[in-house]
């Protein structure tokens, strides 16, 4: 974005006006009430419900009344195997999708910024799934991954391999959905890496070449450290998305078979739809704590490392 900026004119006039700009000027020309309409919507529909969730999570809440019951909802959440399964699945889902998007996104980014054939076509094809509706993608892969009629297993059958029940085998289903999530999202990761990669000055590679560095040295000692901001963005974005993921799972399996592909977000929706509002909100609080506990330290750590460079 910074490259789009018009160059700052550092002439004399600007300097004097910078020095003399009074506080009152800022008060008058950039009034605080500009913040109010947005802040009102944000407070009422986002901040207030978030705070309210910390109360309602401790209640038995139905259409008719609200009753304080302490930690019961959380106890249910972590002792009922149907619900606690969602918790571990969320962790697996978030970590795996994020890790795979970093690795594959970086690989694709390097490939698509290199001098490869049909680069424009490849970029377009890899990125397009990002813009397609998640539910549409989910339904399409549900058909492709059908254990008997699906195109994937039929193709495997041609080679004499009996394909597994991608979405019907309880031990496999979560990983199948993770694969589709990566398929859909890796284009965004690659795009972010591409922006980071083209910002690395060519001179570094020139200098390294003079010093006799090979391709691997270049990658390891120049590319990898210098795309760090892109890596931070990809890790944080895909972790946030992965831990909160709902739509793809809902479209592909609805959390099934049984509860084997449930995540916290789908549990929240199921309890909401079933009218267990307190339990659903407890799920929300669990997700809130989980996301904050992972993202905040990671964010601080990744940014600290960045300034060390």
């Amino acid at each position, binding site marked *: 974005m910074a490259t789009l900026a018009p160059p700052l004119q550092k002439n004399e006039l*600007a300097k004097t006006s910078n020095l003399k700009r009074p506080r009152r000027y800022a008060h008058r020309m950039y009034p605080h009430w500009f913040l109010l309409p947005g802040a009102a919507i944000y407070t009422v529909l986002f901040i207030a419900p*978030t705070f309210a969730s910390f109360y309602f999570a401790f209640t038995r809440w139905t259409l008719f009344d609200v009753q304080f019951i302490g930690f019961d909802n959380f106890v249910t959440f972590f002792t009922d195997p149907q619900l606690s399964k969602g918790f571990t699945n969320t962790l697996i889902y978030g970590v795996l999708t994020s890790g795979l998007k970093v690795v594959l996104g970086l690989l694709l980014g390097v490939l698509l910024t290199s001098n490869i054939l049909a680069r424009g076509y490849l970029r377009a094809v890899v990125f397009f799934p990002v813009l397609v509706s*998640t539910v549409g993608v989910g339904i399409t892969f549900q058909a492709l991954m059908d254990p008997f009629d699906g195109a994937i297993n*039929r193709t495997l059958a041609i080679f004499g391999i009996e394909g597994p029940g991608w979405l019907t085998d309880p031990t496999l289903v979560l990983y199948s959905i993770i694969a589709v999530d990566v398929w859909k999202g890796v284009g965004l990761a690659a795009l972010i890496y591409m922006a980071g990669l083209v*910002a690395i000055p060519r001179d570094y590679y020139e200098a390294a070449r003079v010093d006799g560095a090979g391709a691997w040295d270049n990658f390891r000692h120049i590319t990898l450290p210098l795309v760090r901001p892109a890596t931070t963005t990809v890790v944080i974005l895909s972790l946030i998305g992965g831990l909160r993921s709902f739509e793809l799972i809902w479209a592909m399996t609805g959390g099934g078979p049984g509860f084997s592909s449930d995540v916290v977000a789908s549990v*929240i929706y199921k309890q909401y739809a079933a009218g267990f509002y307190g339990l659903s909100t407890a799920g*929300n609080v669990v997700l809130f704590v989980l996301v904050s506990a992972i993202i905040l330290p990671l964010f601080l750590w990744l940014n600290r490392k960045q300034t060390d460079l």
Partner: protein
Amino acid sequence: MKRHVAARHVTGIIAILVSAILFLVPFGFIVVQTFKTGPEAARLDFGLPTQFVFFDNVAKVFETRDFMLVTAFINSTILTVLSVSIMVVLSAMIGWVLARRPSRWNGLISFLILAGLIVPPAIVPTAWVMQRLGIFNTIGGLALVEVAYGMAFCILLFRAFVSTIPRELDEAATIDGAGPIRLFFRIGFPLLRGVIVTAIVVQSVAVFNDFANPLYFLPGERNATVQLTLYNFQSQFQTTWNLLFTNILLITIPPLLMYIFFNRQIVAGLTSGAVKG
């Protein structure tokens, strides 16, 4: 040198083949099914259709459940236009003031904006607040929810961009007698045009493709948005695959058009955090 060129061609061809299998085949699959009759599409294979019934399928998809898809397209359009225009104007105002006027509240405000990107929304309490305000299950209410969820991203985009616009323009306008509102809408807003287009395109695609929030906050057939129409053709007992894939194809057209016409802006918006500085 020759070996280099050959290697380049080999990786290129491999990449094209792999990408075709991984990325084109699923979309080709969707398209092929839309040409087929119900029983043929139910076989879920790549066989070519014996009868080409694409236009019949499109007509049927539109007619289903009393033209529900037409209603849904109207609803989704209203929702997208309403939420994105409110979101963009309000976020631009906020980004403008935050970048131009440092104050001791900026730390807290930045924290709240980051929270908006990270914190998963509390669903039932939000529905409860909306019910209290009488905006639950209304398109306007859902639009405001989309505004609340999308604003954080837009503010960060605008704030970063405003800080690159020289202040001298503001000062010149002030000397010419502009007030804060005129200054923002006449000077600030036009200068932000590029980044406003980016915000509009990225958020329109996001709102149009949103499935979860309409599911939570806008239940009921009358208010269906396009993403929810996909469930018209899928039930526990039977799925009408040809119509389902036709529906997927139809609701993918608007984002596809956005991508074709605004590719550059989408890329600019989505990569804004990737480069330091």
